[in-house]
């Protein structure tokens, strides 16, 4: 444990009372060396209460910000409390605590962001994706590949590890729109951070419902494509805006 730099597992949770206790229990049993922060994203159920009962850190957002906002809260927490690195972990039981090690190893190899991929070679295919969705993901994968000139097999995976510099960067500028993960990936690459992908086995959900319905997903998807296309041309401007938020009035 003393050889392990201080590591924070960030769990964004919106009404996840059904699955969260089991996830926290598993983390406590299998990876007790990591601190855990649950960000209750305006939950209206017992999410925060149950997390607190499990003895982990709990940040309670006053209303729902979406996963990007919840993550940014977690990143800020990690930076202020002096954590060396952080892992983004799902509250619905999709992620395996034992796979966290593989992500952290990626950081040890010098990466700033490590993505646990459901589709990389070596990741067992226990994760089912429907036809339309798979094609949509393919398009994204291709577009991201073109934009950042690096191939990723799973651009939207929410199983990720972040180095300290990456955390400091994202604490200010993590995208807060839905499908944040893809935009964050592009931002990191464009910002000159090293991004790596490692295979990660993922399971089906253990409880709760997927966060978004299909027709809404299509809208978010189109919006994301627009954001991605625009983001490459206005990179300088975004950097300026971030700088202004830090120092300006």
């Amino acid at each position, binding site marked *: 444990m003393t050889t392990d730099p201080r590591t924070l597992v960030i769990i964004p949770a919106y009404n996840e009372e059904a699955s969260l206790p089991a996830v926290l229990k598993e983390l406590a049993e299998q990876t007790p060396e990591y601190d855990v922060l649950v960000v209750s994203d305006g939950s209206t159920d017992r999410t925060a209460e149950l997390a607190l009962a499990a003895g982990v850190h709990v940040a309670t*957002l006053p209303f729902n910000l979406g996963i990007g906002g919840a993550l940014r809260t977690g990143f800020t927490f990690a930076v202020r409390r002096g954590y060396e690195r952080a892992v983004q972990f799902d509250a619905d039981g999709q992620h395996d605590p034992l796979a966290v090690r593989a992500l952290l190893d990626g950081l040890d190899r010098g990466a700033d962001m490590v993505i646990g991929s459901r589709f990389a070679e070596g990741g067992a295919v226990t994760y089912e994706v429907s036809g339309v969705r798979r094609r949509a993901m393919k398009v994204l994968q291709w577009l991201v590949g073109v934009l950042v000139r690096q191939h990723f097999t799973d651009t939207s995976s929410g199983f990720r590890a972040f180095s300290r510099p990456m955390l400091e960067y994202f604490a200010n500028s993590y995208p807060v729109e839905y499908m944040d993960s893809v935009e964050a990936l592009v931002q990191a690459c464009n910002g000159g951070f090293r991004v790596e992908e490692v295979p990660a086995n993922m399971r089906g959900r253990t409880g709760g419902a997927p966060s978004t319905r299909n027709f809404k997903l299509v809208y978010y998807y189109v919006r994301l494509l627009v954001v991605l296309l625009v983001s490459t041309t206005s990179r300088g401007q975004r950097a300026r805006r971030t700088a202004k938020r830090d120092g300006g009035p």
Partner: protein
Amino acid sequence: MSTGAHILVIVLAAGVIAFIVHLVRSRRLRAKYSVLWFSIGMGLAVLAVFPDLLVWLSDLVGIGYPPATFMLLALSFLLVLVLHFSWELSRLEDRTRALAEEHALLREEVEDRLGPRPGRDSG
């Protein structure tokens, strides 16, 4: 324009200006917007009193139908205004988010020190 229509337009413009004055005096309109709306109100009043100005302006830019000039001006103004509001809304949302995040972190710290209190999620 008939005398009746002329009077109607003048009355309407006066009404708009009176309403803006009322909003500003009761401090329900921020100063930066009051200047904007006062200018608009004055512009409307001038056009209402001297409708020939519109004809003159149309001739100047080569628009054959004076009301179209008015529509063009009004539409351009509204477009810019709506764009400005979208920008302002985005900025406000950014700030609200930042506040919410800060609130969550401060609350975590306070509760960490004082111990939890009941009704976390609802409050």
